[in-house]
């Protein structure tokens, strides 16, 4: 096991940032960490990186504690914090090389791992440019390259695509997938974008108020916590429906069912007996976003753009 987090607690004064978090990650696994602002994502990442000391509970990276065995844990992790952290006056290659050197790479190994990281993040043509002259998206890619240049066993990417365009996000997602597949890197990927996590085919953990409210693959979470629905629109007020769980609003009736397509033939004829005029029928499939909304009662700050479509 690469990462084991058990009953982790962390407070800042009176504020409980984490209240008993349990997470496990294996080699090559991608964990999408979803949660609204203040849910505890960055605190969790900082605790795993050894930047903070837990109040209670246990964190182990490759069986070692990040605080008491800092050196060996830090050699195994790659951290891209939430805030963009790059050296603006240096070139792209200098930024990436510095972190490879800190991890002990020298000579041909150094050149190879730097070249690979730069190529993976599509930065080859920018390698000689000063970071201060790059766009926001390009800087984000440099920021990520600095975290993965040494091929860490565990990469902690805290909102790596915050504030970047769809193409940059797509490139970063590709790079993350490649890292997990080619090197077996376990990747903890916190994000505000549902589509991104779905595109990564990641296992997800939804954090809210310092607790993991649900954990599993996207399809497991959706099937466990949300149902598909038939959305029926009428000319005039919608009729009542008691045979299945349903919501009624003015001229719309939403009927929740496991098999919406199959149930159309059962439901629509029954509605014709109510004397109402049915205008349209739509099948509504459950999404990660609807699960998130249902579990946390909150929307993520960032809009859930259809990154999956761009990949």
């Amino acid at each position, binding site marked *: 096991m690469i990462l084991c987090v058990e009953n982790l607690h962390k407070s800042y004064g009176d504020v409980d940032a984490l209240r008993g978090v349990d997470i496990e990650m294996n080699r090559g696994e991608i964990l999408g960490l979803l949660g609204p602002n203040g849910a505890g994502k960055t605190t969790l990442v900082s605790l795993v990186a050894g930047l903070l000391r837990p109040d209670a509970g246990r964190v182990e990276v490759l069986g070692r504690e990040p605080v008491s065995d800092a050196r060996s844990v830090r050699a195994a992790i790659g951290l891209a914090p939430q805030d963009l952290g790059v050296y603006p006056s240096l070139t792209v290659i200098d930024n990436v090389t510095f972190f490879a*050197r800190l991890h002990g790479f020298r000579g041909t190994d150094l050149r190879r791992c730097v070249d690979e990281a730069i190529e993976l993040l599509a930065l080859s043509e920018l390698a000689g440019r000063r970071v201060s002259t790059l766009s926001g998206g390009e800087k984000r890619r440099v920021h990520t390259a600095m975290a993965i240049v040494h091929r860490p066993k565990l990469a902690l990417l805290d909102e790596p695509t915050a504030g970047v365009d769809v193409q940059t996000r797509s490139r970063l997602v590709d790079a993350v997938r490649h890292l997990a597949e080619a090197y077996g890197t376990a990747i903890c990927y916190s994000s505000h974008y549902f589509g991104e996590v779905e595109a990564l085919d990641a296992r997800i953990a939804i954090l809210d108020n310092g607790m993991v409210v649900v954990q599993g693959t996207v399809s497991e979470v959706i099937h466990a916590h949300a149902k598909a629905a038939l959305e029926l629109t009428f000319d005039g007020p919608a009729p009542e429906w008691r045979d299945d769980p349903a919501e009624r609003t003015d001229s719309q009736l939403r009927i929740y069912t496991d098999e919406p397509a199959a149930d159309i033939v059962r439901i629509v004829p029954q509605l014709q007996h109510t004397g109402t005029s049915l205008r349209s029928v739509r099948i509504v499939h459950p999404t990660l976003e609807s699960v998130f909304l249902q579990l946390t009662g909150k929307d993520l700050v960032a809009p859930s753009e259809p990154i999956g479509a761009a990949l």
Partner: protein
Amino acid sequence: MTVVRVRAIVVHELKILRQDPTFLIIFTLMPLLIMAFLKPTFRAALILVGNPGANGAEQAVPGMAVLFALLLVGNVGYAVFREHGWNTWPRLVASPANGVEIMIGKSVTPLLALCAQLTVLFVVGGVLFDLRVQGSIVGLVLVAASLAVTLVCMGLLLISVCRTVLQLQAGTYLGAMVLAGVGGALTPISSLPGWARHVAPAAPTYWAMRGFRSAILVPGSWTVVLWPVLVLLGFATFFALVAASRFRVGDVKIGWA
């Protein structure tokens, strides 16, 4: 492995310095200019206090070297505060380099910068203003090297007590003026008021100026600077120990963004 990481940080810091060496260039050229203005005044002052053969360079060159070396103390702190400003500090701390390696790596470049500055000031200043070293060149080098080490340790101390880069800047400039004045860098120590002469030995700059004066004016071997060098290294040790006891890599520092 420790050496590898320290060297990586030193090379990295040198690259950053190479991208913008303005600070170092200005703080090396400016004292040479000021030496030209102050040399006649210092000549008169040195003659008045019993050095009939003095030409003023004996005070102007080491005095301005000490003052402007003090102004470079902030460089040690900027190396840390700019990491906070650039948000690179957390990722540096999360790297395999531990706090000691980071701070040693961060200190070497300012130390080299101070050595380069002092070398230029003594060599160029000495030639331009006819500084005649009657004592030991080795002694002069030993005092300059000890001063550079002491100032770097003073910089580490400032990092440990300052929370913001503005505090660091204020501490550097205020400290430079006070220590240069009390230590006899701005005017010969013998011309200071009585109270200042009494407190002067508490300032490392006093020992630097005393060492430089001994190496320049007193014929003999380098041993004439032994005591000032030891005291300077004592100050350096004290500053380093206090800095080590107060500094925490997790401390919040507010740098320029």
